[in-house]
C-alpha cells in the first residue's frame, strides 16, 4: 500500500533529488576520503601506525597542533568580541557615520591571505607606519614587536569578523524593537538591555558564526606563517608540505584526522549550546529595531572613540595595499615610498597582456560556475531536507553534506585526485584527473557545508502555509518551488553565491592539485609569482592582482548588498524591480538610516 512508504518516497521530485544527492555524495564526498584513508593507512594489507608514532614523537608537530587549536579557541573568543562590537556599532547603537563604519569594517570581506598580511605589515611590520611611530616615541620598543601569538591573533581577529558583519547583523535586524523598549520600560539600563535581552537573542547566530571562526583558526595558513615567528607556527603549513610529499601523505592524513576530531568536538559542543534553536520573535508583527541612542554621554564618547579607532585598524591595511599596488617591488618589500616609486607598469602588465589576463578569465569562470552549481544543487537538496525534516533520510543527507567541513580542504582535494586518477565506475569509468571538470567539482564540494547551513536557515524561515496554499491552488511541487519558494530564498541564495564566488577567486590550495594544465586559475599565478623561485620578483604584480580582486569582490558585494542588482534591474525593467525592492534581504547589513 502506498501509504506505508515514507512521505518523501511519494514525491517524484524528492526521489530524483535524493538520487542525485546520493550519487554525488558517494562519488565526491565519501569515496575520495575512503580512498585517501585506505591509501595512507592500509600499508601492505595491514593497518599502518607509522604516522601516529612519527607525529607524537615530533615536538614541532605537537606544538604546531597545540598552536592551531589554541588559535582556533582564542579566535572563537576574540572574533566574537570584536565582531559583536562591530555589529553593535553599525547596527544597534546610533553612532554617527554608521554607514561609513560599516563600509570600513566590511573591507575585511574583500581580501585575505598573504596580501592581507602584507597590508597589516605596512602598518605594524618592522618598517610599518605604526612601528616607526612607536619606535620614535618609545625607543625601547623593538622593530619586530609585531610577531608571534598576539600578532597572529590580532590580524586574524580583524580578518574574520566578516561573518559577524553579515550574519549577526541579519539576526540583529530580526530583534523586535518593542522588546528593547519594554525592557527599558521596566527600568533596565541600556547595558542591562544589551546583556539580558539583546545578546541572548543573538546567541544562536553567535554559535553558528563561531563554528566558522573555529574552522578558520584551525586551518589558518598565511597569517601564522608570516607573523607567527619561531614560537607560533601552526599545523596547516606542515600539513600542506606533507600532503605535497607523496611518501609523507600518511602524516597529512593523520593530522587531518586529528583536526577533524577537534572540529567534530566543536560542532557537538556548539550544537548542544545552540539546542534552544533560533529565537524567532514571538510577536505577530515585529517592529524593526531602530538604532539606540546611547544615553550616557561618557559611554557614548567611548563608544565613538573605539568604533573609529577600529575603523582605522580595518581600513589602513587595504588602503595601503591599494596605494602600494602603484609602486615597484622594492617599495612594497621595504614599505617605503619615494616620489619615483610610483608606476603604472604593473597595471599595464596585468590588464593589457593577454597571458596575464587569462588567469582572471579562468578564475572568474570557475568561481562563477562552481558558485552557481553549488547553489542550484543545494536549493533542491535543502528543499528536500526541510520538506521532510523529521525523516531519517534528511538526517543522513545532512551529516554527509558536512563531510567537507570535517575533512580539511587539502585532504579532500588529495582524495579526489587519487581516486579519479584511475577510471572509476561511479563516474562511468572515466578518469577525471586532468580534466577541466574536476576542479569545479572540488570547488563545489568545498562550498557545500557553508551553503547548506545558510540555505537551510533561509528555508526554515519560510512559512509552511505558503507552500500549502500553493498546492491547494493546484500548483505542482515543482511549480510551487519555482514560483513561490525560490523567490523567497533568492536574496539569501544570492548573498551566499556572492560570498562563495569571492572566496574562490584567489584559491590556490585546490587548484594546485586539480587545475587543468591550460586552465590555471589566478591563485596559482599569484603563488608562482611569490614563491621566490622565479627570476624577477613579481610581488608588485601580486598586489595589482589583489587590488583587482578586491574590486571584483566589492562589485559582487555591491550587487547583492548595496542594492546594486536592484538598481540595475530597475534600469532594465522599472516595473518589476520596484516591487522586488520590497523584499527584505535576509542578510541585509545596511542600516536603513
Amino acid at each position, binding site marked *: 500500500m*502506498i*501509504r506505508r512508504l515514507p*512521505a518523501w518516497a511519494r514525491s517524484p521530485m524528492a526521489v530524483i533529488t535524493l538520487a542525485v544527492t546520493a550519487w554525488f555524495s558517494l562519488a565526491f564526498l565519501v569515496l575520495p576520503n575512503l580512498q585517501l584513508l585506505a591509501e595512507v593507512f592500509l600499508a601492505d594489507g595491514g593497518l599502518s601506525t607509522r604516522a601516529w608514532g612519527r607525529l607524537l614523537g615530533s615536538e614541532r608537530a605537537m606544538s604546531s597542533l597545540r598552536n592551531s587549536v589554541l588559535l582556533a579557541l582564542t579566535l572563537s573568543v576574540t572574533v566574537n568580541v570584536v565582531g559583536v562590537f562591530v555589529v553593535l556599532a553599525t547596527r544597534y547603537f546610533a553612532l554617527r557615520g554608521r554607514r561609513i563604519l560599516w563600509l570600513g569594517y566590511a573591507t575585511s570581506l574583500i581580501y585575505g591571505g598573504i596580501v592581507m598580511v602584507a597590508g597589516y605589515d605596512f602598518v605594524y611590520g618592522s618598517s610599518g607606519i605604526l612601528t616607526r611611530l612607536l619606535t620614535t616615541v618609545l625607543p625601547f620598543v623593538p622593530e619586530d614587536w609585531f610577531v608571534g601569538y598576539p600578532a597572529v591573533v590580532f590580524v586574524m581577529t580583524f580578518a574574520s569578523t566578516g561573518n559577524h558583519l553579515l550574519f549577526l547583523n541579519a539576526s540583529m535586524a530580526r530583534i523586535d524593537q518593542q522588546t528593547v523598549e519594554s525592557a527599558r520600560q521596566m527600568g533596565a539600563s541600556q547595558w542591562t538591555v544589551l546583556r539580558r535581552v539583546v545578546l541572548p537573542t543573538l546567541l544562536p547566530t553567535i554559535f553558528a558564526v563561531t563554528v566558522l571562526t573555529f574552522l578558520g583558526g584551525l586551518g589558518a595558513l598565511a597569517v601564522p606563517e608570516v607573523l607567527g615567528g619561531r614560537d607560533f607556527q601552526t599545523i596547516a603549513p606542515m600539513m600542506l608540505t606533507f600532503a605535497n610529499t607523496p611518501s609523507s601523505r600518511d602524516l597529512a592524513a593523520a593530522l587531518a584526522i586529528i583536526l577533524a576530531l577537534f572540529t567534530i568536538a566543536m560542532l557537538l559542543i556548539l550544537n548542544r549550546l545552540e539546542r534552544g534553536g533560533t529565537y524567532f520573535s514571538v510577536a*505577530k*508583527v515585529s517592529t524593526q529595531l531602530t538604532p539606540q541612542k546611547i544615553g550616557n554621554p561618557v559611554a557614548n564618547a567611548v563608544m565613538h572613540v573605539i568604533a573609529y579607532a577600529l575603523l582605522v585598524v580595518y581600513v589602513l591595511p587595504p588602503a595601503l595595499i591599494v596605494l602600494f599596488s602603484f609602486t615597484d617591488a622594492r617599495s612594497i618589500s621595504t614599505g617605503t615610498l619615494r616620489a619615483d616609486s610610483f608606476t603604472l607598469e604593473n597595471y599595464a602588465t596585468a590588464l593589457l597582456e593577454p597571458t596575464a589576463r587569462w588567469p582572471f578569465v579562468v578564475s572568474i569562470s570557475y568561481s562563477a560556475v562552481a558558485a552557481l552549481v553549488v547553489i542550484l544543487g543545494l536549493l533542491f537538496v535543502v528543499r528536500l531536507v526541510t520538506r521532510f525534516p523529521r525523516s531519517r533520510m534528511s538526517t543522513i543527507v545532512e551529516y554527509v553534506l558536512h563531510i567537507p567541513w570535517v575533512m580539511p580542504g587539502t585532504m579532500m582535494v588529495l582524495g579526489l585526485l587519487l581516486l579519479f586518477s584511475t577510471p572509476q565506475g561511479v563516474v562511468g569509468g572515466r578518469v577525471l584527473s586532468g580534466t577541466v571538470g574536476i576542479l569545479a567539482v572540488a570547488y563545489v564540494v568545498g562550498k557545500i557545508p557553508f551553503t547548506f547551513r545558510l540555505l537551510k536557515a533561509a528555508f526554515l524561515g519560510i*512559512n509552511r*502555509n*505558503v507552500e*500549502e*496554499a*500553493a*498546492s*491547494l*491552488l*493546484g*500548483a*505542482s511541487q515543482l*511549480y510551487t518551488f519555482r*514560483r*513561490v519558494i525560490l*523567490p*523567497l530564498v*533568492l536574496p539569501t541564495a544570492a548573498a551566499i553565491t556572492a560570498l562563495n564566488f569571492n572566496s574562490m577567486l584567489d584559491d590556490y590550495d585546490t587548484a594546485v592539485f586539480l587545475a587543468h594544465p591550460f586552465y590555471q586559475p589566478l591563485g596559482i599565478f599569484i603563488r608562482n609569482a611569490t614563491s621566490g623561485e622565479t627570476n624577477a620578483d613579481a610581488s608588485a604584480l601580486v598586489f595589482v592582482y589583489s587590488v583587482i580582486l578586491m574590486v571584483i569582490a566589492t562589485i559582487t558585494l555591491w550587487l547583492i548588498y548595496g542594492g546594486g542588482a536592484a538598481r540595475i534591474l530597475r534600469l532594465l525593467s522599472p516595473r518589476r524591480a520596484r*516591487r*522586488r525592492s*520590497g*523584499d527584505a534581504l535576509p542578510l541585509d547589513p545596511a542600516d536603513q538610516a
Partner: protein
Amino acid sequence: MITFENVTVRFGDFTALPDLSLHVEEGEFFTLLGPSGCGKSTALRTLAGFNDPASGRLLVDGRDVTALPSDRRGIGMVFQNYALFPSMSVRENIAFGLKVAKRPKDEVHERVHEIAEQVALTPAQLDKGVAELSGGQQQRVAIARALVLRPRILLLDEPLSNLDAKLRNQLRVQLKELQQQFGITSIYVTHDQDEAMSMSDRIAVLDHGRIEQVGTPREVYERSATEFVCTFIGSVHRLGEQAVSRLSQLPGSPVAEGLRSYVRVERLTLRERHRPNDGRLVVDGVVDRADYHGYFTQYAVRLGDRSVSVRVPWSATESAFAAGDEVAIGVAPEDVLQYERSGPEAGA
C-alpha cells in the same frame, strides 16, 4: 458531500483528533467551534491533505480522497495566517491558481478584477506588494485568492480573527453572501462563538479533538448538549445548590436537584425589589458595577458573598440601575440548563 469517517490524526505520541466522524452537506456553511488547541485547524488541514490520518477515511462526494495529493483535491482554503506569497503582487497572488490552471490571459484578468471588486480591493491595491497592505486588506486578498478558483469546497481557518470589529462585521456579511451566491460548501473554523452563531448553518463544537455537539446555532445555544458546550458558548451563571432546590419547588418546574445547573446571563431578569415574580425564583442583591455596552448593560450584582453577571438589553430597562442600587434577580425555571457532573445530559 464531505465526510470524515473515524479519522484519527496523531503528531508523534500526541493524538490531536482521536476519532472524528462528521458529515457536511452540499452548500452548507459548517463551522468548527472550540477553544484554542482543540484540533480545529488539524481537522481542516487533514481534509486539505496536509496531515496524513493514522486511520479513517475522508470522502468528498462519496469518493475516497484520503490518499489524494492536496493539489488534486479541488479544495480552496483561507489560512489562519493568510499565507500570501510575499514575493508577488496582490494581483499575482490572486491570479496564481488561474495561471497554474493555464487559463487564458483575458479570463485571468477579468476574473481577478471581478473577485477583487467583490472583496472590496481597489485596482490600485492590486498592483501593490502584499506587504504594503494592512492586515485587513491582506485577509481579503487571501479570501479572493481562494474564491477566484470557484472551488466547490472552501475551508476557512479563522479568516476574520485579526480584524477590527467594524471590518469583521462587514466581511462576515460579504463572506456569507459570496458563499451563498456560489453555493460553496464551506467549513469555517473559529473560536469566536458570536461569529459561529451568526454565520453558520450548523456548528460542531469541539473539545480536545472530540465533537461535543453538532447542531444549528440555536440548538447549540439553547439546548447545549453538554456542560462544556453550555459554558463555552455565551455567558452563563452557575446556580448554587440552594437556588436549584428552590427552583425545583416552584410549581410546574422541570428543574431537578443534584445536577449542575446554569442559566444564561441574558435570561436573568433585573428588577426593582418587591415586584411580582411571574413564576420566577427571585433573589435580592445589590448592584456592584454597571458596564455600559451600548446596546446592553452588564451588571455585576452581589448576592451575599457571590457576584452574578446580568446582561440587560437596553429596551428591557428604560430605567437603568447604578452601583449601590438594591435590586432583585429573577430566574425562570424553564431557562435552567442542567447537566450530570460530566457527560452529555441536558435538562431544559
